[in-house]
């Protein structure tokens, strides 16, 4: 089967090995958005649920002001 050309051809040479292996890096490169912050929403949801499940973890997060999981609140999907 012939390979269809993609709309934007990316030369593998100009991307680092990590970028070639990383779909997100590849997408950012294609869309010309190299600085776009990628947020793993599913992992952050898991983290949020962990803090909800175990009050001690939530308490210590607040108490010691560790860097909060980035933008946790924004990624939270409120069910109606």
């Amino acid at each position, binding site marked *: 089967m012939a390979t269809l050309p993609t709309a934007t051809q990316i030369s593998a040479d100009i991307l680092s090995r990590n970028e070639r292996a990383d779909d997100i890096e590849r997408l950012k490169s294609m869309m010309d958005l190299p600085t776009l912050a990628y947020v793993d929403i599913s*992992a952050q949801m*898991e*983290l949020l*649920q*962990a*803090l909800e*499940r*175990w009050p*001690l*973890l939530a308490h*210590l997060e607040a*108490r*010691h002001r*560790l*860097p909060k*999981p980035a933008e946790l609140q924004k990624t939270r999907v409120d069910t109606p």
Partner: protein
Amino acid sequence: MIAMSLQGIRGGVGTSTTLAALSFALSSLGQKVLVIDMCPENALGLHFNLDYAPAEGWARATLDQTPWYEHAWNIESGLDVLPYGTLTDVDVLQLDQLLRDNPPLWSTRQASLAHSVDWVLFDLPQRLPGHIANPRCEIALNVLNLDAASHVLLQPQRNSAQRLLVNRFDPASQFQRDLLLLWQHHYAQSLLPIHLHADEAMAEALARREPVGRYAPGSLIAQDIISLASWCLLRGGRLE
């Protein structure tokens, strides 16, 4: 030669058992290993079928100003264990002061070992600053369990030079999975990529007075320990 230390974040997380297993694994991978008990409990030798709390050891010899290296026991080819020796509580504090007053004491000793061993593994105590700070180690591991108590102790400003080694990981536990996720988020740079699984063989190994790699070589934990030893070899090779 690579110097490495293991210290539990608290007692009872399995530090000495892990160290005994790791030393056996490194030795079985062809490395010459010296294990040094830095804990006044003086019980590390039990993992190697030595006597409980032998009277002679490096700590006793250091206070008595006699040769410290004469008290090492050869367990098998390429694996030696140096006990702490029996000290009174007052002696322990006096030795800790001596170690604080002489910061290069162990690094000088380590230098003298450089051509005879590949690895020196220190089993560090909890709260003796001189004992803890005196050895100079290229790799320092802090052993933890995925439990609430370890998490609480991990909270204050932690020594970021120490890598975190999870012991007794039970993937079936919801809390352990949640806590691991949180640690991976906060301590991504410090957390070792290898976690040691909870395995009854590890507890049985001490009861049998053997390192787990000899007692149950086919067990999950013995495989984990081999992975850890391989990680150490990789890190050591990079550092040397």
